[in-house]
């Protein structure tokens, strides 16, 4: 039986559909929903407000033409897709959201949010672009502002106790997610990058976090069994790729697909879809400060400087026995495109691994050209080092 046929995977594959139904029912009985777009959104505060947090980051090409009626065409596809879902009102999760929580990350996003705010109630957090003490102080104030907005909009009080509970719950989810992703450390990995991406993508829509945890733990147990029995879609010799860079999801997965169709194995996602989610919140001390510290630490290219990303790439390359790094950057994403230069030097010189940058968008128009690059890159990785 293939992994996708197992019960755990099947249940994960249908999370979105089930979640839409659950949302509709819960909304009728008073559940509040907050939509988020970014790893900087402190989900703990939303959960502590008794609301559901759903990820609304656009990963589909479909609504982009509608977005381009307003937004520049040469903008990052993730921003266009996210906005396109709002103007076309075609995302049920966005439809159910009572409030959008957004941050001033990159220029494109923050200006898009100004437009999005005209369509839906939106709370914008001013995110500092550096990770130091002063930034932390102002970020704590921003978290307090969000807390007040949530309390006011949802008519609740976010006590320290409730925040602590939310921290524990989300940390538990991270623990579960990490154990799952860490199965890819095995050589060969018992799960393909596309399968893992399906899990990462779908679990972001589950409003029942405990269900998420149970499903992922079940899948991890299945993967352990498979690994012990020597079952894998790959062999020992399959080149192992770390995908770094911009967020990806189902619909913006073409590079992951191509790498695996061309004979590689994506063993890790060094991005906001994958490993960047796993950093836990400190459970000791003041909960709001702990949440602020955790989220300010996210190593995104919109921070300057952004040393955390280099450390994370290094760790993952070593821990996941990575043969080569692909840095995926969306067209129009200045921060990741520029940072790619320094990352290339770092990966080639410090980590002695081949590096390939791929700059593309969500459309399929360059599939053939990408194939040549990816195949050539895998040919480099396939030779004995």
């Amino acid at each position, binding site marked *: 039986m293939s992994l996708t046929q197992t019960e755990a995977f099947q249940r994960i594959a249908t999370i979105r559909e089930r979640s839409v139904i659950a949302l509709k029912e819960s909304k009728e009985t008073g559940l509040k929903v907050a939509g988020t777009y970014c790893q900087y959104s402190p989900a703990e505060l939303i959960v502590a407000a008794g609301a559901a947090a759903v990820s609304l980051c656009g990963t589909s090409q479909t609504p982009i033409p509608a977005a381009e009626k307003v937004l520049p065409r040469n903008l990052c596809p993730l921003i266009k897709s996210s906005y396109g879902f709002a103007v076309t009102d075609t995302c049920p999760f966005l439809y159910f959201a009572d409030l959008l929580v957004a941050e001033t990350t990159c220029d494109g996003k923050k200006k898009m949010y100004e437009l999005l705010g005209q369509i839906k109630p939106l709370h914008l957090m001013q995110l500092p672009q550096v990770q130091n003490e002063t930034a932390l102080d102002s970020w704590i104030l921003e978290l307090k502002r969000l807390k007040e907005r949530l309390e006011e909009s949802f008519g609740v009080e976010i006590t320290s106790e409730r925040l602590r509970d939310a921290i524990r719950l989300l940390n538990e989810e991270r623990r579960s997610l990490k154990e799952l992703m860490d199965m890819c450390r095995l050589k060969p990995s018992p799960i393909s990058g596309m399968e893992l991406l399906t899990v990462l993508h779908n679990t972001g829509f589950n409003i029942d976090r405990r269900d998420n945890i149970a499903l992922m733990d079940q899948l991890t147990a299945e993967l352990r069994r498979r690994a012990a029995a020597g079952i894998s879609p790959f062999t020992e010799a399959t080149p192992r790729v770390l995908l770094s860079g911009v967020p990806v999801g189902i619909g913006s997965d073409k590079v992951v697909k191509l790498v695996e169709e061309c004979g590689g194995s994506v063993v890790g996602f060094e991005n906001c879809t994958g490993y960047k989610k796993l950093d836990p919140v400190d459970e000791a001390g003041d909960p709001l400060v702990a949440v602020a510290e955790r989220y300010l630490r996210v190593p995104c290219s919109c921070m300057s400087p952004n040393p955390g990303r280099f450390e994370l790439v290094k760790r993952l390359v070593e821990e996941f026995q990575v043969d080569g790094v692909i840095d995926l950057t969306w067209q129009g994403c200045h921060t990741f495109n520029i940072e790619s230069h320094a990352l290339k030097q770092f990966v080639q010189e410090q980590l002695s691994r*081949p590096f390939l940058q791929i700059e593309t968008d969500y459309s399929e128009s360059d599939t053939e*050209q990408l194939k*040549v*690059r990816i*195949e050539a890159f895998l*040919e480099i990785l396939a*030779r004995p080092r």
Partner: protein
Amino acid sequence: MVSVGIDIGSTATKAVVFDGGVRGRAVVPTGWEPREAALSALRDALLQAGIAEGQVGGIVGTGYGRISLPIFDRRVTEITCHARGAHHLCPATRTVIDIGGQDSKVIALDEGGMVSDFIMNDKCAAGTGRFLQVMAGVLDETLDGLGSLAAGAEPVSLSSMCAVFAESEIIGLLAKGLEKERIAAGILDTIARRVQGLAGRIALRDTVTFTGGTANNPAICRVIAAHLGVKLHVPEDPQFVGALGAALIAAD
């Protein structure tokens, strides 16, 4: 062992028969039937070598078409094949520049001749053999004619790298009465600048080998070498380097 490499390019399909050395080779236009082109290049090359198809131990296919044919034992990208061919012809090669019909690429090789990095331009015709062909056509010249025309002329600066815009720009310049020589020099300049832009993203280490049919044109070689500030090594018959590399890989 006798091995064969077939490089299906966007304009020409090349085949090389290898057995310790090049025994036969052939080039045919790719046209609309890349499969046919591959088969006829194979036939011609075998004929020249005086070798029957049954004696061939392995065939590797490569090239832009990247079409999988039943006769191929394996398909390998043109990046790996060009590097292998260039390194075989000139073991000191650390960089390969290839201007193909629909793409151009710069490939970095390590000491052992293995690909360590590469950069490709294949989004549009700018900086490719196609660009040169179209522009030569506007001037009513062959590629060789374009080269000799350009020799010694002061290049006019063309602002468009895009084949479509450059075409209308050139027609405009001709209408203004600008000398064809200066325009020809300007066209070569544009190609060189494009390659320079590509090469800027990779450390160009000596020896730089220039492959692909375009390298047959001495004027283009001169202009590119001048822009990059390096000496270019042009192997004999540069258009066969990819097919040779494929044949060498097939012999592994």
